[in-house]
């Protein structure tokens, strides 16, 4: 008795631990991307995303007010003076600085409260809270004085990355067009195969016709054909019949590549529906088409949903098929996966851009997964558990 109980709890621990490991494995990069996409380039450069919620020391470059702006310079006791707060000039919340400098070679030349001599009678004093006073014997001109400072900055999150990547029409690296291109590929590429496969699966499961077993065998055989095999002949074919590269081509390709799995999955589910129900519908006067639409389709919803999720995720994340059948030299039909590949090349150092782009592209799959997960599980278990 003890032995059995012990085995059971041991197994349970193993299950729990592996679930925990899987959750962490999944959560760690996802949350990392999510947090990073709300941080500025400076923050990403100085600290990891896991420190996003704590204050951190940062090196900043802030310019004092521009002396050419009206009302900035004032003559006090015969001395031209510019005063203000560096953090305010930069549009930041109040912070505390420790050291500062006026040259990029020596950013820690002075401590807070010290006065630096800039030559030509110009002097600048910077306090710990960022207040500065810039004085000169003659009227100042040119750009605002640069101040390098090291300060402890409170945690801060910004929507600027998203603003930049999604809503800035001038940004050539923006994701918004790619996002809609991906949607344009994905939705028909999910709906079309389901429509075709549902009809085919019903026929293969419930209609008697010669050669049915051979057809099923052929579908199963097609499951193991790698799609790379078909890329070039199919593209040649598309060019031959005048579709060329474009949405029509990629829809057809995704449909073709998705159909074997779709038919196989749906047929196996439908064949498990109770025979009595379908025979009863026949006796009740329903034609095959009515049985399909009124009985089989509603009862197959879990399997339909589960395949829809699969196909949606796979077409959403697809790069290969899109590259071959969709994206032409103009790049106007670039999908998100391709856009990210290009960003990696051109903006490889701008992690805030990459993180944002990546998170934009995984947001929809995440949403789909969380909304539809119960159908995913139910569809995968299809046939193994007899439902009431």
């Amino acid at each position, binding site marked *: 008795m003890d032995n059995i109980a012990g085995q059971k709890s041991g197994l349970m621990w193993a299950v729990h631990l592996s679930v925990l490991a899987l959750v962490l494995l999944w959560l760690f990069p996802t949350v990392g991307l999510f947090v990073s996409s709300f941080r500025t380039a400076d923050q990403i450069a100085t600290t990891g995303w896991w420190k996003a919620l704590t204050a951190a020391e940062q090196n900043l470059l802030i310019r004092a007010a521009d002396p050419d702006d009206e009302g900035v310079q004032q003559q006090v006791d015969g001395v031209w003076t510019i005063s203000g707060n560096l953090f305010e000039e930069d549009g930041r919340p109040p912070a505390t600085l420790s050291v500062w400098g006026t040259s990029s070679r020596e950013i820690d030349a002075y401590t807070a409260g010290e006065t630096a001599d800039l030559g030509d009678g110009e002097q600048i004093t910077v306090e710990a809270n960022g207040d500065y006073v810039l004085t000169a014997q003659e009227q100042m001109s040119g750009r605002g004085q640069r101040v390098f400072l090291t300060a402890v900055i409170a945690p801060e999150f910004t929507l600027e990355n998203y603003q930049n990547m999604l809503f800035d029409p001038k940004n050539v690296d923006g994701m918004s067009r790619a996002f809609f291109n991906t949607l344009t590929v994905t939705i028909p590429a999910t709906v079309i195969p389901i429509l075709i496969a549902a009809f085919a699966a019903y026929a293969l499961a419930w209609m008697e016709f010669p050669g049915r077993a051979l057809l099923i065998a052929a579908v199963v055989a097609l499951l193991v054909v790698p799609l790379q095999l078909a890329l070039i002949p199919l593209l040649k074919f598309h060019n031959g019949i005048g579709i060329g590269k474009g949405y029509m081509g990629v829809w057809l390709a995704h449909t073709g590549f998705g159909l074997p799995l779709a038919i196989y999955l749906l047929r196996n589910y439908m064949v498990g529906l109770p025979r009595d129900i379908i*025979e*009863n519908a*026949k*006796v*009740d*006067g329903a034609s095959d088409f*009515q049985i399909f639409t009124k009985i089989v389709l509603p*009862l197959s919803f879990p399997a339909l949903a589960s395949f829809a999720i699969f196909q949606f995720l796979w077409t959403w994340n697809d790069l290969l098929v899109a590259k071959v059948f969709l994206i032409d030299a103009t790049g106007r039909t670039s999908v998100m996966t391709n856009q990210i590949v290009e960003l990696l090349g051109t903006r490889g150092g701008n992690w805030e851009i990459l993180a944002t782009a990546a998170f934009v592209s995984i947001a929809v799959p995440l949403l789909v997964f969380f909304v539809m997960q119960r159908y995913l599980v139910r569809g995968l278990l299809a046939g193994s558990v007899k439902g009431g």
Partner: protein
Amino acid sequence: MAQVHLRDVVKKYGAIQVVHGIDLEIQDNEFVVLVGPSGCGKSTTLRMIAGLEDISGGEITIGDRVVNDLPPRHRNISMVFQNYALYPHMTVRENLGFSLKIAKRPQDEIDRAVDEAAGILSLAEYLDRKPGELSGGQRQRVAMGRAIVRHPEVFLFDEPLSNLDAKLRTQMRTEIKKLHQKVKSTIVYVTHDQVEAMTLADRIVIMRDGHIEQVGTPLDVFESPANTFVATFIGSPPMNLLRGRITGDTISLTDGPLISLPPQFASNVADGQDVILGFRADNLMPVGHAMPMEGAYAEFKMTVNLSEPLGTETLLFGALAGKEVQAKMLNPRPLQNGEQLQFQLDLTRCHLFDAQTEQSLR
């Protein structure tokens, strides 16, 4: 107006023949029960009448139409399945109205038919539930209701009660009988339970291995079984069968007593013929615990090896002519196992079968 006629109906699955040329005439409004052990072809026959199985040979007519090549939906039949076969995604109301909706009848007619059926089967309060929320008996009633809303020419029942527990089965059996009286219609009912067959049927069709063994009213098949198979299949406990040989006007049971030849068979047997004597437990009773025997009877001693008290009577297991024999004891008293009693056998209620053909010698 729906007679069902089967003429020389044959069913083959590849080389295997499961129904061997069945002839059967079912009258209008008749309740016919097909009964037999599993694998006897009774369900296959029913499914051929429904159109769910192709007919390999012969002819089936419903009313005046030959339906051999008609799909089920054109046969104007309803079928009740063993597993209810309710549509799980529809409410009871939708289940009941499905066939009418398919036939594109107007909505008010559908509502009327559904309400009528729900009234007959007292389902009114469950109309908006899904089948998953109903008990077994309620589901069975929905399945029957679904059959009656269409007012079909023929009802087909395929072992409809075998998934219910014993108590509910008895109850639903009565309901089916009442239903037949309310909704005058032809019913073909398949079961393997001979009690169901006896209680429900106007006529019983007993099948074995794809052949019809006997067709008759319940009393007919009980009182004059056509052969030893029917004799053992109908009635509980099964009929006792003992081998013997005719010698003059007695039957000499193999390794058993001499028993005088039942008078009703006297002219049908020849001297020296090998026969099988059949009698039911009800007709073999210990002296003093028996009904008074009015006609000819035989008397012999038998040892009781086992007894099963049933209350008003006790079932006795003894050995006669080297075989186990069941007898009944009225006004029972406690018995010791191994006790020897004097038994009386009512010869007027005995049956004789030919030992070779196993057919009745009546």
